[in-house]
């Protein structure tokens, strides 16, 4: 067991973990932040995407001990402190960018990272950026519309 300390959504978190515990499991089970979803657990589906030091990463493809000293933002950290939806979350709701909601946290985190780096993506750029997240309900069109709406809202 190893000690680990990181910032999660702005809060210092300390834990003692097995090295094989993934960051995703740490967030869910040790921090009780179950908004980070686990689908495939081997880096394909993107449901567990979080921001590490501002960059979108798969939380199932790194170990919690590797996030030592890092700054993690999960889906819970994207909205306002009063529960207000972020621009991206609001756009997903407006455009029916979700149905069952399982994949949604990963999409919202990925899109948040995309729009920070590229505030006005083309449709092709949006599709490429979304290629690392799987959704089995929406057929993706609503999600793409949501990204376009969020980009427009931020303009």
């Amino acid at each position, binding site marked *: 067991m*190893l000690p680990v300390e990181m910032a999660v959504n702005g809060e210092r978190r300390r834990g003692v973990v*097995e*090295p*094989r*515990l*993934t960051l995703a*499991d740490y967030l869910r089970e040790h921090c009780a932040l179950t908004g980070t979803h686990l689908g495939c*657990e*081997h*880096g394909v589906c*993107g449901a567990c*995407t979080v921001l*590490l030091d501002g*960059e*979108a*990463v*798969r939380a*199932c*493809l*790194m*170990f919690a*001990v*590797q996030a*030592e000293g890092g700054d993690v933002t999960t889906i819970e950290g994207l909205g306002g402190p009063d529960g207000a939806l972020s621009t991206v979350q609001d756009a997903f709701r407006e455009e029916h960018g979700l149905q069952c909601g399982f994949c949604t946290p990963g999409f919202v985190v*990925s899109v948040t*990272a*995309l729009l920070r780096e590229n505030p006005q993506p083309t449709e092709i750029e949006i*599709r*490429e*950026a979304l*290629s*690392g997240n799987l959704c089995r309900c929406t057929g993706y069109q609503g999600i793409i519309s949501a990204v376009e709406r969020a980009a427009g809202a931020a303009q």
Partner: protein
Amino acid sequence: MKPAPFEYHAPETVEDACGLLAEYGDEAKVLAGGQSLVPMLALRLTRFEHLVDVNRVGELGGFARENGTLVVQAATRQRVMEREALVAAAAPLLARATPLIGHFQIRNRGTVGGSLAHADPASEYPAVAVALGAELELARRGGARRRVAADDFFVGTWTTTAEPDELLVAARFPVWPERSGFAIEEVARRHGDFALAGVACAVSAGRAGIALFGVGSTPIRARAAEEAWVAGAAPDEVAEAAVRELDPPTDVHATASTRVRIARHLVERAVVRAQEELRAAG
């Protein structure tokens, strides 16, 4: 928590990392970006008693142009290769290959050295290294270093000539002449999937490099095609020469003959594009 238990090591110097590899040998595995290793551990396709995480080794991050070489330290994130103007200027093929790797979330963690050392036959960087004539620099305990030509580094699926006690510390990409042309082309079912077939190529006056990927157990250098290209053969003739001796695998994604046909088409297209770029460079 799916991987089998392991002991975790986070050295901060190359020497310490090499010391751990020397001590544990086959029982240890280097953990770089983890974007291939962690899934394999999660699926229990493999297991190791010791993981040596090189993400805290400061000297393994970064890149620099040294005379005629772009030296990329092994644990440099792939994402850096697509963002930095210096990389695009010194090794355009490396910069252009990067967006084809996985997805941006993967490239945020994945490293240049990790991809090379993992040596997946369908991955882009090994082919880029072969096409450009790169060298891989390996370190072992005590400070010993050696350089291996990319041509001699990849020996089979997920297999390289690096010894268990050696750490890949840098990839050295030669800077091709100002007047050169480059292209990388691949076909994948969806963006970010493993390529069914692909080719990386480079051309300058009197010199050409062509490496295919996804069509064998290693990146495949198409020497006959390179010679034909330098001798002035037409793109379709270069492509024909490149695939003449290919023997790609058949799997659920594509048959061998489909892969050959895709590869032939891609080589032709890449050669045309690289040739156009060379011409535009004067």
